[in-house]
């Protein structure tokens, strides 16, 4: 009983310890706010600029979500295509790996030339950074159907589509939801990177301009806001994953 309670709160305890240490070190060594602000300074800054921070945060949030939705759509479609056909897999996979290995920040200047400074490059950067893990996971789920099961269905006269819909899709759901958790955090990376390079709005822009004015507490406040948003969305998808595909993790549930 006590053990499980400790486990439940362990991550909060670690967080608290880090914050206290951080605060203590900053005060003990009188580290300047311009270099490395203490948690208290960051909180003060969060309070002071709550209004503008909220505005920028919402901008970043919606850009990220738009990119994420695009990424999920394209990721699932591509995954379906690649996972359901050997030919498509062989033809497309190397190209996708190559594309994925390009640092996504390198796209931002190109996107700015095409679409101008602002929201569109942020959305598209979030998109290009987050679709790949979804594609790979959906494709894996589809490609690893047990041959016996396929035989059972094919012997009944099932066509490819039947097998995909009755078996492939539900089977790939756990992989899909697992990839959503990765993809949503990546999408935040994408949008913020783009905003940092080329935008007049968003947390990335806020941090960039605050940094250039040496207002480090505000820069750190930006970091914290991004992290909180990403973690919240991660929690949403982790919850969805448990609800939708509990059958895939029943072993863990049984132990919990």
């Amino acid at each position, binding site marked *: 009983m006590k053990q499980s309670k400790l486990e439940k709160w362990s991550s909060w305890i670690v967080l608290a310890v880090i914050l206290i240490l951080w605060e203590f070190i900053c005060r003990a060594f009188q580290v300047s706010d311009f270099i490395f602000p203490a948690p208290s300074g960051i909180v003060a800054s969060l309070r002071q600029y709550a209004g503008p921070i909220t505005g920028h945060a919402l901008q970043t949030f919606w850009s990220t979500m738009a990119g994420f939705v695009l990424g999920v759509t394209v990721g699932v479609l591509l995954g379906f295509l690649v996972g359901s056909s050997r030919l498509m897999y062989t033809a497309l996979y190397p190209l996708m790996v190559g594309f994925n290995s390009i640092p996504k920040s390198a796209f931002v200047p190109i996107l700015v030339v095409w679409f101008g400074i602002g929201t569109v490059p942020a959305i598209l950067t979030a998109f290009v950074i987050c679709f790949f893990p979804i594609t790979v996971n959906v494709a894996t789920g589809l490609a690893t159907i*047990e041959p*016996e*099961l396929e*035989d*059972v*269905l*094919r*012997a*009944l*006269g*099932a066509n490819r589509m*039947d097998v995909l819909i*009755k*078996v492939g899709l*539900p*089977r790939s*759901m756990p992989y899909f939801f697992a990839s959503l958790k990765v993809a949503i955090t990546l999408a935040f990376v994408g949008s913020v990177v783009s905003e940092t390079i080329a935008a007049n709005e968003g947390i990335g822009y806020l941090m960039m301009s605050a940094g250039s004015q040496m207002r480090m507490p505000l820069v750190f406040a930006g970091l914290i806001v991004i992290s909180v948003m990403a973690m919240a969305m991660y929690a949403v998808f982790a919850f969805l994953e448990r609800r939708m*595909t509990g*059958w*895939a993790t*029943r072993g863990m549930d049984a132990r919990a």
Partner: protein
Amino acid sequence: MSDAFVEVDKVDLAYDEVSGNAIEDVSLSMKEHEFIAMVGPSGCGKSTFMKLCSGLRRPSKGQVTVEGREVSGPLKIVGMAFQNATLLPWRTTLDNVLLPLEIVQPYRASFKRDKEKYVLKAKELLHSVGLVGYEDRFPWELSGGMQQRVSICRALVHEPKLLLLDEPFAALDAFTREELWCILRDLWMLKRFTVVLVTHDLREATFLADTVYVMSKRPGRILAKRDIDIPRPRELEVTYTDKFVGIVLELREHIGRIRKA
């Protein structure tokens, strides 16, 4: 032979050019309602034989005829079960059994309309194999023997004329296995589908089948055919009679000779 239900005529099957024939020059004929068993050493092409009967594979040479027509594609009149129950973990027991009805005609077309009727039918089938009250459980909540019973129900729900069983009891413990023999025996006595049972277990083959075929090492050929003239209904006790043991020993001798060769 006009009364043959499945007719296999001098069939070779090679999966590709390199690996050679998986089975070679196999001929046999099965009457409707017959229960045959294939025994043989590992990798002797018993599963290949099943794929031929179901129409999943076409022979490289020779021909397979079912119900008087040459097999050229998947036959919808077959049900299959394997060593692994291969149940879908996201479906309940009941929904797993209903799966074939969502796919095979004529059930497919009327599945939504007549769902209640089919649910009843699936439940009846589950009850007949001793699974009462497990309809809404998920596969991982069932024991291996129970899963295998569900798998057999799934293979039978669309009333196939031909039931193909690929070592369905191999992964079970001895007692559960014998229990399932009896369940299969009773189902067969009741519904009289034609069965091809692939197995390593000579007692299983002798207890259940009308005819046992012994296959050789790869490339698989039929080496011996043994009619099991033990009267039905057979009870488990029959497996301890001299006659039964005699047949098992005879089959064992064939296998021994193959393994030495």
